[in-house]
């Protein structure tokens, strides 16, 4: 794994506050990696330490076996959470400025900028000032600023926050394009559905510690439970008999199905058999891995986004529309 990005036992304190407490995770090259956690969990601090914007009190970070403090700056592309651009500068001028700092020639930068603006469907924005753009379009410009120098590793802090569905889709496509070019992508988020869709590996951070990390499939299985979705007509949606089965828990009662948590050592089809033996008509029986939301709750004890944050995020999306 020497080619990977290795974050090894990093600790960072700000005064009396422990932002990171021996956090470790590994990101294989060419993968899309999700850093999950609630606000204040330590995601941004981890990213800043990887980028060498901050130095850890202890621990180390290596990429392809080389300490991050010795790596050339153009190894990394960085997309901060927001406001990472000069509001009064024109888009094209600004992007060429950032590209120039990484040593990209003006001609190359112009060609890349034109290509990416076209891809993001905003080719006419090159002469607009950043402050005139919507939040979604500003985020696209920040993304372009982060990749113009063709970095090996792209690190993005909450890239989807406040974006409308169309822009989310465009940004996801851009992520996949970068992955197809062999780039390693790391992004932080607390939007589990995005992680489910894009990430091959994750780390869940809580109070400065990495509580679980690895491939998404391994993380799902490591939780030791399976999810069963069941609809029968025998007992309405109540299906109270299910709760009497040893080890089985009802985790959600939806309008048209029950969601059950089943221990890994129990064969889920035994539930189906029990229902049929009872003479119930089974209209839905589905075995699935637990969702990342469930995994997050199992490890952290609460949701990644509390209700007030979710409301703010929704309001932000509506405003962006």
């Amino acid at each position, binding site marked *: 794994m020497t080619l990977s990005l290795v974050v090894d036992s990093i600790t960072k304190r700000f005064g009396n506050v422990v932002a990171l407490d021996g956090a470790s995770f590994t990101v294989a090259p060419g993968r899309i990696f999700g850093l999950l956690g609630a606000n204040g969990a330590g995601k941004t601090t981890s990213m*800043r330490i990887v*980028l060498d*914007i901050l130095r850890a009190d202890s621990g180390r970070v290596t990429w392809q076996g080389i300490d991050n403090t010795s790596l050339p*700056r153009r190894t*990394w592309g*960085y997309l*901060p*959470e*927001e*406001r*990472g*651009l*000069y*509001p*009064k*500068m024109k888009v094209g001028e600004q992007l060429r*400025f*950032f590209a*120039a*700092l*990484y040593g990209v020639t003006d001609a190359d930068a112009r060609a890349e900028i034109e290509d990416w603006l076209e891809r993001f469907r905003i080719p006419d924005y090159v002469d607009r000032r950043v402050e005139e753009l919507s939040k979604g379009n500003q985020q696209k410009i*920040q993304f372009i*600023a982060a990749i113009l120098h063709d970095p090996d590793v792209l690190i993005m802090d909450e890239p989807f926050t406040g974006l409308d569905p169309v822009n989310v889709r465009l940004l996801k496509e851009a992520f996949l394009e970068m992955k197809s070019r062999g780039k390693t992508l790391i992004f932080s988020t607390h939007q589990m559905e995005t992680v489910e869709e894009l990430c091959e590996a994750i780390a869940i951070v809580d109070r400065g510690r990495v509580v679980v990390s690895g491939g998404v499939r391994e993380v799902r299985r490591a939780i030791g439970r399976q999810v069963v979705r069941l609809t029968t007509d025998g007992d309405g949606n109540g299906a109270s008999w299910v709760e009497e089965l040893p080890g089985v828990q009802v985790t959600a009662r939806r309008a048209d199905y029950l969601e059950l948590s089943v221990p890994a050592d129990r064969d889920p089809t035994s539930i189906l058999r029990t229902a049929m033996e009872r003479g119930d008509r089974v209209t839905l029986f589905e075995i699935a891995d637990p969702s990342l939301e469930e995994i997050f709750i199992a490890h952290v004890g609460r949701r990644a986004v509390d209700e007030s944050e979710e409301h703010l995020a929704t309001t932000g999306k509506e405003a962006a529309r």
Partner: protein
Amino acid sequence: MSGLFPNVYHVARREYMTRVRGRAFVITSALLALAVLALMLLPTVLSAIGVADPVEVAVVVEAEDLPADPIILLQTAMLVGTDGGSEDPPAEDRGAPRVERVDEAEEAADAVREGDYDALLTITRDGDGDLAFEFLGSASPTNETRLQVTQAAVGLASLDRLERAGVNQAEAAEIFAPPTFTAVPIDPEDARNQEDFFGAFILSYAVVILTFMAILTYGNWVAQSVAEEKSGRVMEMLITAATPRQLLVGKVLGTGAAGLSQYLALAVAAIVGYIASGPISGVLDVPVEARIALPALGIGTFVAFGLFFLLGFLLYSTLYAAAGSMVSRVEDAQQAAGPSSTWPSAATSRRSWRSTTPTRPGWRSWP
């Protein structure tokens, strides 16, 4: 540590372009240039509208047996106060002060109130026979005419007392003759003649004031710019792309270049004003000498000025940048930069004092 260039150039260029394209910069530069232009033309215009008319003092002599002609004494004192007392002042042309003897005190007082005379001096004798003077004019203790008239009055009163004590005019002249006084400079090679002194005096003040203004104004630009980048996340983007040293040097150089551009605009305005004041004097029919006089300074002096200016600016701008980096909000930048302003203020006070004694050994030392 990677080298400073070319990132310093990119950062400086962005800083410069952002600054000089800003509406505030353009408006401020234009207003300052206009102010400088007006300042250069002011003496000519004032001369044309009569504000700079020569001082006229009326004298009423009610006292008898004066030891000397008070008119000549006053005229001499006021000439010494204006042009060094050259012997052939064509008073009408050169704007030399005029002293006129009048007989009617009341009429003269009315003329002063109406502005025909600047002041009226009435000379009488008190009960002890001593000369007494009454000055009608500006009450300001620093008024130049009042000071000169006071000086002449003291001289006249002294001569009068001496004469009444039995000392004749020739003996009095001997008493008041200046003694032999030789000034020996500590460093003979550093000695300056009158012209050198004047040039050094003007230059040292100009350097102090221009550098101080540049440091305060442009230093605050640097602090504000750093705070702006820090308050957003632009700093994180920048610090990922360039080293802190590249960012600092680029920012200071870019802002400094913008400041110098503004100074250049002011210098051009000053030169235009100086050149234009000649033809304008002709049109307004006022003497060319009315315009601002420039000291004769060599190119080496200007190079030295540029060097001091640059070094001072770089030193203090770096302090301002450090101050800006310590705050998270743009609003706090000015406050954080406060202590940075203390140093140039202290250095300016020290240099101002030194500039009044330019032959003192080591007066050129920094700051």
